[in-house]
């Protein structure tokens, strides 16, 4: 599948990602079933966690951010939230998810 939207399969609390807020004002994270989109630049077991950005007409799901270093789309089984750590295996970069003023989520490189 080349599209950005993966099927949300259920809603469960996160495990190792950033914890839900203490007062419980955020809904549980959505979980997503990922499919291999044909991205071949990492070993097979990691391929479904990355996909090529398709350019105009493409969009990111709540479980996706773009790597600022190599522009590959990084994916997760879980909906991303600010503070989450993400890894881009194709370019070996480590990042943290941040929320921009317009409300969108982005990944910032952490060296």
């Amino acid at each position, binding site marked *: 599948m080349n599209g950005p939207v993966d099927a949300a399969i259920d809603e469960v609390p996160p495990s190792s990602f950033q914890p839900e807020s203490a007062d419980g004002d955020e809904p549980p994270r959505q979980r997503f079933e990922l499919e291999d989109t044909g991205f071949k630049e990492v070993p097979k077991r990691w391929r479904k966690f990355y996909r090529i950005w398709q350019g105009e007409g493409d969009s990111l799901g709540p479980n996706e951010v773009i790597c600022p270093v190599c522009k*590959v789309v990084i994916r997760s089984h879980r909906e991303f939230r600010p503070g989450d750590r993400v890894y881009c295996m194709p370019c070996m970069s480590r990042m943290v998810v941040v929320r921009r003023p317009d409300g969108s989520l982005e990944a910032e490189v952490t060296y």
Partner: protein
Amino acid sequence: MADVDHDEEPHLLEEDQFLQEVHSFSFWFEAIEGYLEDRPRGYVETLGEPTDSKTMSDADRDQLITTLCNYCVGESTALEASSGLVRMAPNNHSRIFLATQVADEARHLEVFLRRLEMLGVTNPEAEVEARAASGLVEFRKRLLDLVDQGDWEAAVFAQNVLLESMEDTVFKFHESVADTITQQMLEGVVADERRHLGFGENDLGRRLAHDPDGRSRLAAIRADLDPLVLASFDSVYRELGLSREDQPQLGKEYLATVERLGLTT
């Protein structure tokens, strides 16, 4: 290879597990196997010679030869420089990664030389020397001087950030307009560039975080080397027949990288 639960996602790895995994030889081997297993010479040979290669005009063929000759200069420069960097790598992760980059660069050089032969060039080595852009030749000399001087930070910047950024941008664009065989070769090369770029930015980013004074030194080196590489790849666009207004922003991704590293002047 890191000992990980294969049902887990990469983002749940500890940082040292992640670095051990992505710098490993097995990671590299399984990654390149994914996009090279059906194209040992850089393209799908079973397809035969595609129509767009058979019908290429003499002028287009000549322009492509010049472009590929300059790609060969870039790749042979990276091959020599990355092999020199292995010796001065600060740790085993970097040493092992650079060994994989040496192999990548050698393969790139090999496929571009083979493409030149396919285009009728009988002595590719001589043709590369004759058609090499002077700016790129000068850049090669400067980069290899940095390696010879043992200047790890400057050499990694010049090779894995500056040269790789420019190649990545130009190769991606060329891939979108190239004949089928050249396009398939460039596709495999671009996939490798992601690792090389990422290694350079992340290594320098970690170092500069502990050595703020290093930024001004690298910024000065950048100001010295930028014009050589920018002019060389700008000329590739002209060889590809693009007018200046139709050219993609050659330095856009590169400038974003130097900004993240704090190397803007």
